[in-house]
């Protein structure tokens, strides 16, 4: 009878200890199980176009370029080709 009582007490204490440990470790456990590693690749892209005929194409950003800069001639009607926009394109790959 005494032995049974002791066991119940010890078990209660053990359970309490276990719960305490669980609550302190929970944030870490969640972060470990839920993080899906993704690779994000960022690339600077610029949109070049012809304001006259509407020709547009995108290419890699070149250092020193800015929106409104003349970067060549239009392949369609040989007007000046200008940078219309510069932005970051994100590519995500699941690992």
């Amino acid at each position, binding site marked *: 009878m005494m032995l049974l009582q*002791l066991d119940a007490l010890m078990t209660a204490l053990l359970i309490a200890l276990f719960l305490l440990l669980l609550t302190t470790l929970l944030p870490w456990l969640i972060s470990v199980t839920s993080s899906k590693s993704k690779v994000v690749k960022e690339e600077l892209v610029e949109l070049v176009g012809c304001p006259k005929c509407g020709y547009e194409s995108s290419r890699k950003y070149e250092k020193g370029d800015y929106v409104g800069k003349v970067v060549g001639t239009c392949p369609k009607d040989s007007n000046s080709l200008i940078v219309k926009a510069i932005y970051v394109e994100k590519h995500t790959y699941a690992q």
Partner: protein
Amino acid sequence: MNGGSEIASYLIVLLFLVSLLMNFTDIPQRIQLHRFSSFVRRKLYTLEEMEVDARRKAIAYMSSTGIKEPSKVLEGFMDNFFLIRPVDMEPTDIIKRFKHLIRVRESSVRDYVRRVLSGAERSVQYSVETVLEIVSVMRLLNKLIRHYLELGLKYNNWILVMQLAIQMPELVEIAKAYRNSLDAFTSGIPIGDSVGPLVAKMLVNWKEPIREISEGTDLYETEVEGRKVYVIKASGPGSNVGWPGEALEKLVEELGGAIDRIITVDAALKLESEESGEVAFGTGAAIGDIGPEKIAMERIASKYSIPLDAVVVKMSEVEALSPLTKKIYEGVVRSYEVVRKIIIEKVRDGGVAVVVGVGNTVGVK
């Protein structure tokens, strides 16, 4: 009684005592104070590393523009050039006073940079000014965080330290945005805040301006389906916001108020539930100014009772400072269409409209 149950009863007494200590003393708060302060310290360490990194980038950029002793220039700028807000207890002519102080500060910063940057292009000069401002903002942020941390520890104000700890992740994000914006400013790439100038440039079909209407602010002229459209934006491609309010005021006065509609385009802070790049329109002056430029727009519009429209592209604070993303660029295209639609639907054929592209024009000529 056997030994086991004795241990158990000791444990129960211990548990009881511990619960007493935890519930009826301020020991838990002390423990929390310690935990939160060490958390803040760790984050502050990252922030200070970021500041060092930003400093390094700024110095590298400044020496590439031909500034001698760039670290001395940086040190001379930081902690100086503060602006004391005018008295607002007596608000008479507060805008005039505020505008005056802002202009004086701006011109003294300009003089400071001009002195060390002999004979460089204006866009380079603007960019150097912005780089200096960014590094000093990062320094100020770190100083403020350290101030509240030390204050909290000094007076055992655990609520203050806890509040600081809770805000830390947000502050780290903002500091990161500032550091990343340095890359954009030094290499001349448009940022999220550049959506206004980008829409303006799209509207004029990437033409050259007809003249400079205010210091660092350009005026363009174009036509949209038979409506004459004046477009105002800051002069690029250096980092510059210009004086859009003053420019609008001048233009409207020059035309004698013969304008059918004014449309302002700017970036706006999104709510967490909103998507980046969402476009919305409404009424008023879309400009994130501390006062003078915004009130100039409102005053001139109401003086001649010209309808004032606002078109905004939504983004987070971090996105506004970081290089333009594709999502926000799509927002630029959408807001361009919204502006065109407003002009066609709400301005009579042969009428005159003014579009103001508000924001930093870095990377947009």
